[in-house]
């Protein structure tokens, strides 16, 4: 097929539908839940009914069975409205359920995916530990054999949806003596004996997403809930490859929102009697924002398209994540800077964009880690 940057008719229709639903269902919740520092859990049911959760989940498991490009369209539009809410939904339909979707047994898929896709069960993903952040191979949560299943023990932190989840996909090692060896993923139901939510975490931004700390103490997990026994690293790579492309869409959504807010600010306000938008410096700044948004969007959808063709490499995914999450900072920083004191007032969304976008350089591989992945993939 010739080089084409057009969305298909279905994708365009989908984009309009998502935009309408985001405006109707999400926009009215933002202020309240940012203030409450909690996720509006009712959204899971609402989006589930609309077929807007777990977008790549096939129809046979009650999912909408869409492609990665459509998922990115959805993520961009939701994040344009609210990155905190977007973050919870993204983790549910990405990290939490992708291991099941991509590598889980048929039984496991039947047991979790339909509920997740309908929004009846909320998923979380638990990899990071107090002493294992960038160092994924350093996880200390152990899985030891117990009869037909495993006993999990350890602590997980910075877990999105941690305190509200119904199930959590947990990374643990069956071979704690050897770094990175024996990593296995387990799907654990909330309420399993030995699993507890230790606390909810307060953070800089993404306030309307839920972040918690989880503890496992001899928590029994049956054999059927195991994904990628001893080869969890490969499952994780599959999951992160998709997730890192999604970060491009998150960045694009926040960047677009910051550009929109800046545009209306510079057309409304004057400095020394002259509309801000007449200043060459301001025009250049706004133009620069537009250039970055366009570049992020192009990279993201190219990455998503490659993924749909089954051709996206980890390098492709890391390039998208690194470039977009770094670039969006320029946009939100400029948006805040231009408004001076007013940009920092709670009612002004640009300060939220700044706090929300700041997160993106950290999870699913920090910018530093993305650099190292790309260098390695290039053969260094």
């Amino acid at each position, binding site marked *: 097929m010739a080089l084409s940057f057009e969305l298909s008719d279905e994708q365009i229709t989908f984009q309009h539908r998502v935009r309408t639903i985001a405006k109707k269902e999400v926009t009215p919740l933002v202020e309240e839940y940012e203030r409450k520092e909690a996720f509006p859990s009712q959204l899971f049911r609402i989006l589930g009914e609309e077929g807007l959760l777990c977008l790549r989940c096939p129809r046979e498991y009650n999912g909408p069975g869409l492609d990665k490009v459509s998922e990115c369209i959805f993520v961009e539009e939701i994040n344009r409205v609210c990155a905190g809410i977007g973050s919870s939904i993204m983790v549910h339909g990405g990290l939490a359920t992708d291991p099941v979707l991509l590598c889980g047994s048929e039984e496991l898929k039947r047991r979790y995916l339909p509920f997740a896709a309908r929004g009846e069960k909320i998923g979380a993903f638990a990899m990071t530990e107090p002493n294992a*952040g*960038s160092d994924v191979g*350093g996880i200390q949560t152990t899985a030891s054999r117990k009869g037909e299943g495993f006993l999990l023990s350890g602590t997980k932190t910075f877990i999105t949806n941690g305190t509200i989840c119904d199930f959590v996909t947990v990374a643990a090692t069956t071979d704690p003596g050897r770094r990175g060896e024996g990593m296995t993923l387990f799907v654990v139901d909330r309420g399993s004996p030995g699993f507890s939510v230790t606390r909810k975490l307060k953070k*800089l931004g993404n306030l309307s997403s839920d972040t918690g700390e989880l503890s496992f103490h001899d928590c029994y997990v049956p054999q059927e809930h195991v994904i990628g026994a001893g080869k969890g690293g490969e499952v994780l790579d599959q999951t992160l490859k998709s997730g890192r492309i999604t970060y491009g869409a998150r960045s694009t959504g926040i960047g677009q929102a910051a550009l929109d807010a800046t545009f209306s600010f510079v057309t409304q*306000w004057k400095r*020394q009697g002259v509309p801000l938008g007449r200043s060459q410096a301001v025009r250049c700044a706004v133009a620069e924002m537009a250039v970055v948004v366009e570049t992020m969007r192009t990279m993201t959808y190219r990455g998503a398209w490659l993924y749909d063709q089954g051709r996206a490499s980890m390098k492709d995914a890391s390039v998208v994540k690194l470039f977009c999450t770094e670039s969006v900072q320029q946009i939100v920083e400029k948006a805040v800077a231009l*408004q001076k004191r007013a940009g*920092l007032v*709670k009612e002004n969304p640009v300060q939220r964009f700044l706090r929300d976008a700041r997160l993106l350089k950290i999870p699913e591989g920090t910018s530093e880690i993305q650099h190292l992945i790309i260098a390695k993939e290039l053969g260094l």
Partner: protein
Amino acid sequence: MRVMDFTLSDKQKNLQWAAGEFAKGEFLPDLATELDQAGRFPESVWKKACQLGFIGIHYPREFGGAGLGIFETVLVTEALSRVDAGFANALASLDAGSEVILKFGTREQKEKILPRLTKGDLRLTVAACEAEAESAGSSDALETQKDARGYVLHGTRRLVPNAPLADRFVVPCYEPGDGRITLMVEKGQEGPKVHSVEKMGLRLTPSGDIDLGKIRVSPGNRVGQAGEGGLHLDHYHQERGLRNIAQGLGAAQGAYDRAVQYARQREQFGSRLSQFQIIRHKLAEMRAGLDVIRFVTYKAAADYDRERLTRAVLAIARMEVRKILVRIVDEALQIFGGYGYMSDQAIERCYRDAWALAAELGTEEEQKDVIADEILGPPNHLIPKK
């Protein structure tokens, strides 16, 4: 030949050390977290700072100060901000407007106001901001009328630091007969009304919008001469600007200190973060930035005390401090990784406070306009036609 000397005198070093010790003893992290969440001013710490003589050290001795220069104020401000920029900003902000009284006020006004500011008996602030986009300059003045009994003010001012706490507001005004003037408004029964504003950073310095309603100000509460209001505001922005860059410098140093400490203790991949070249080079770049902004800050303050600070030199300092401050705090947070994003770590508040300080330092575009004016003269369209 006299060699340019970049060292501080023993007296200056001792002063900076004393300020740092005070801050370490009083700016307690748990208290900071509590006040930050509530958006509350650190009353008891401020009282202590007043008792120990940290407020108004550049005021003449006869008005309750220590007779030191702005340079020394900058050193103290830097030391306080290094420990906690939120506390430091709160302590530095209750004498906003003293700049105008010090330079342009009558002896009576100075005697009545300045000693009380140093003792913590009076809280002053400047209400200069009309709207989001307005910056320092002619458009900051509030329209005012004069009659036989004095001035009548009405209107609103936005985002006034310490508005909920202040007893007096220094307000730049414009009166058709007098031209630009500076008036002091006392908070009383009839107003002004204050509406608190929630903000992202520097939450220990509560801000508010004020509604002056229709307020009467006696002629005795005019500071300086009629028509001089523009000079007053320029002077205020200059002196306050120096204190703001010192806060920015201290805040950047504080974020760097925290990042260095964390890099030394945090282990990943079996090593301390401090062993990884990526982290080492980040810290090196932060350190280089600190040296640059310390130099421009001290230079501007020293120029001021010798009465030869130009607008461009201050603008350069503001621009560089702002740029480097936000970069350093951003990198510091990144070194903390996920922990840096969580409110358990002080760096999360450092980040919010740094952005609020950056807003005080003005936009890069404004500073470049000032610097370009010095290089090229003002652009034609800004030269008033006769």
